[in-house]
């Protein structure tokens, strides 16, 4: 899941202050799962934002709506049909949805209602952790399923480094050392020797974002409508 965190109300108000009619667009997928941009969170903002606006003398009409996934245009389109169009949309989806809106919405201004943080997993209700950075060249086969890029603060491919202490990282003592986790996992599986024998060569970062925006295109899935 893509984990997002709601932006402060002040920031959202600053974005929309030049506009009179604003749609707060919630996303019923990842942003809902991490309790930052689903229907209820979006409605909470719709409750509080007009109060803050009124205090500052800003006259704005706010409406909230949520669709299944903002990153699929077909879900969004019906919410923007009709003549009563907003002047601005605040998207509570991850950046993917917000980008798609900007691509499609023409004269309507688009703002992010959340900060898109990472690809992560739920540790417990209310706690999410980054697990993957989407580098495009997965090495999890050699690191026993634990990612050295996402979970080592230094993203080193052959660790741990000298800054690991009592299983924690020197960058942030609250962060588990990713490489210690890899070692412990190998040990638990009885494959520590495999790890010792493995040298991971420098990655080709061109498959990551450094080669520009990536795209997956499957010709076999292409639809040719009659």
């Amino acid at each position, binding site marked *: 899941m893509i984990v997002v965190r709601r932006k*402060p*109300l002040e920031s959202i108000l600053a974005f929309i202050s030049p506009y009179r009619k604003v749609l707060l667009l919630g996303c019923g997928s990842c942003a*809902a*799962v991490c*309790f930052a941009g689903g229907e*209820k*969170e979006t409605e*909470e903002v719709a409750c509080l934002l007009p109060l803050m606006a009124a205090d500052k003398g800003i006259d704005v009409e706010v409406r909230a709506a949520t669709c299944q996934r903002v990153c699929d245009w077909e879900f969004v389109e019906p919410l923007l049909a009709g003549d009563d169009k907003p002047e601005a949309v605040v998207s509570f989806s991850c950046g993917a949805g917000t980008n798609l809106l900007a691509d499609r919405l023409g004269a309507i201004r688009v703002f992010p209602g959340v900060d898109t943080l990472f690809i992560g997993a739920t540790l417990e209700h209310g706690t999410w952790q980054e697990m993957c950075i989407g580098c495009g060249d997965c090495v999890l086969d050699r690191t026993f399923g634990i990612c050295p890029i996402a979970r080592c603060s230094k993203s080193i491919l052959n660790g741990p480094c000298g800054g690991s202490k009592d299983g924690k990282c020197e960058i942030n003592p609250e962060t588990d050392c990713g490489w210690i986790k890899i070692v412990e996992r190998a040990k638990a599986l009885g494959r520590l020797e495999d790890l010792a024998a493995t040298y991971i060569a420098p990655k080709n970062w061109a498959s990551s974002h450094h080669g520009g925006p990536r795209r997956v295109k499957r010709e076999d899935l292409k639809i040719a409508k009659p």
Partner: protein
Amino acid sequence: MERPFPPCQAACPVRTDTREYVNLIAWGRFEEALQVIRKVNPFPSVCGRICQHPCEAKCRRGTLDAAIALKELKRFATEIETAPQPVPERPPVTRGTVAVVGAGPAGLTAAQDLRGMGYGVTVIERLGRPGGMLNLIPKYRLPDRVLSKDLEAIIARGIDLRCNCEIGRDVQLSDLQAEGYQAVIVCAGLSRSRGLALPGFGAERFVAAVPLMMDVWAGNPVSVGRKALVIGGGNVAADVARTLRRLGAEQVTMACVESRAELPASEEEIAAALEEGIHLMPSWAPKRVLKRDGRVAGLELMCVTRVFDDKGRFSPQYDPAHVKAVAADMVVLTIGQAGDTSWTVGSAVKLDRRGRILADRELHTTSEPRVFLAGEVLNGPGSAIQAIADGRRAAAIVDEFLRTGLLKTPPPEDRAVVGEFPKAACDKLHRLDRMPMRQVPGPERVGGFQEHDLGYDQAAALREAARCLNCGAGPAIDEVKCASCLACFRLCPLDGVKIQKKMVAAPEACQACGLCAAECPQGAITIGHWTGEQFREQIDRNLDAEPARARAAVVLCAHAEMSRSELDALALRAPHAAAVHLRVPCVTHLAARDLLRLIANGIEEIRVVLCSPAACKHPSGQQRARQVLTAAVQRARAVRPAATIEFIEAGQVLPANPSVQGAPQ
């Protein structure tokens, strides 16, 4: 999504929406509770007194501590009504006419239903007033005014009632047919006591139950003697025995073939009889009547060794060597009743070899076209609520037949039923004592026919209704909106949600606390009827009505032991007087969004009144609600720094009610 039936509703022959009326009582919405009952039952007041309440036997709270007192709550709903009942609708007669024979529960239900469908309905009744055998239920169980209330409401629907008119005597079946009725439904009941060919039968003061009880009902003088013996172990026998005590018999014995465990009378009736000093003689069968000077002097009884055979059929066996003589100056035979079939003479309605009317039990038809049966005359002895259900069924069949010419049984109202509580869930649930009902003590009540069960007062009814586990009202999950975030699954303290690719409700473990719905980030969960929109509507309604009040709000958990009148009293008190009042089914239903909606409407001071933890059935839910709602108000302080939330336990604002005996303090 169609929710499963709660077991109480499934057990009710008319499928009363028990959970709904109990919850409405818990909400203080008493008139609406009565409407829910009336929707399927034209005898709510009667059933609130004498229903055998199969619902209670199935109540899942019974496996936890004690079943909800459903009969008493029904009675409360029928008695608390203060607003005048709406004048019943009298639709124009558009569909022809039907005659109903017998104004008992089956006949009057069929009559009311058909009248409601647009038929002209005439009811003929052999007694001087409607009610049938309900009239013979002793007044200490079913006071006249209570029975009259239901009867009057039914008749007021525009039913043509002809009393003192007995079929086969005052009017013949052929007369009714000649009058042009398109169908006749005979609901004549079982009006005759069964006899027993005992040696000595016919002695003076050896009497049958029905004529005796008819005399008592009619106010005729009844001489009972000092020692009475009642033969029979059913509810009628208990009624007779208890009536005899009130008529002056000092020593009353009930002797029956069944063992103590097999007694057909309800446990409540037996308990009441024992409290009134009635002596039970289970497993004793009458052998002969002892006479002195032509009058009853006692009864010789023989020991019963077995009542039912291996296949469960009634086939008593005796030990003739083990006999006992019991002195009595009166013996009453209450071993069952039979129908009077004399009205069939001269008609095409045929009888079977045993003298019973030949009929199709499914279709209610007889061998005479357009003549139908319903109630005990068709099914044999049963409860009032079974008769009501049967009358309803007959009305539906007759309507279908008259409209289409087809004989069809009504579609069954069957749905899945919520199953047993899983042990793990059961162990986590809060135990709440059943509220005791006020009663006149046994020795005092035998002095007269005054009603001895005094029902619940408002405080007791509110508490009792709040014990309902809400079986089957749990999460209805909107699959489209559900993000599968797992919050409901992780949060539910009872494992009331399961993962089956998506989130699905597990109704067995659920008591519809609403925590999942409050937490759901997508608003995808409905609990009972609660979607959260009702809260928004209440805010709008209150602010439209009294915008000046809109600085503070009191949000009441509807289970916070408060009725509307108590709420009104609370509303007059400072500081609540200057607040808008809102109700939620339970504080656990309240989402952060709901409170922020209040704040968005200019309300900064929020007080939430909830149950005292000892009275609350969702104690862990209260804790969660406090956590989530406090956090929501803290978030709102970014915009409204003065926003506050305070939680008040109901016990702090309401005095304990001293009128309820044994009420938990």
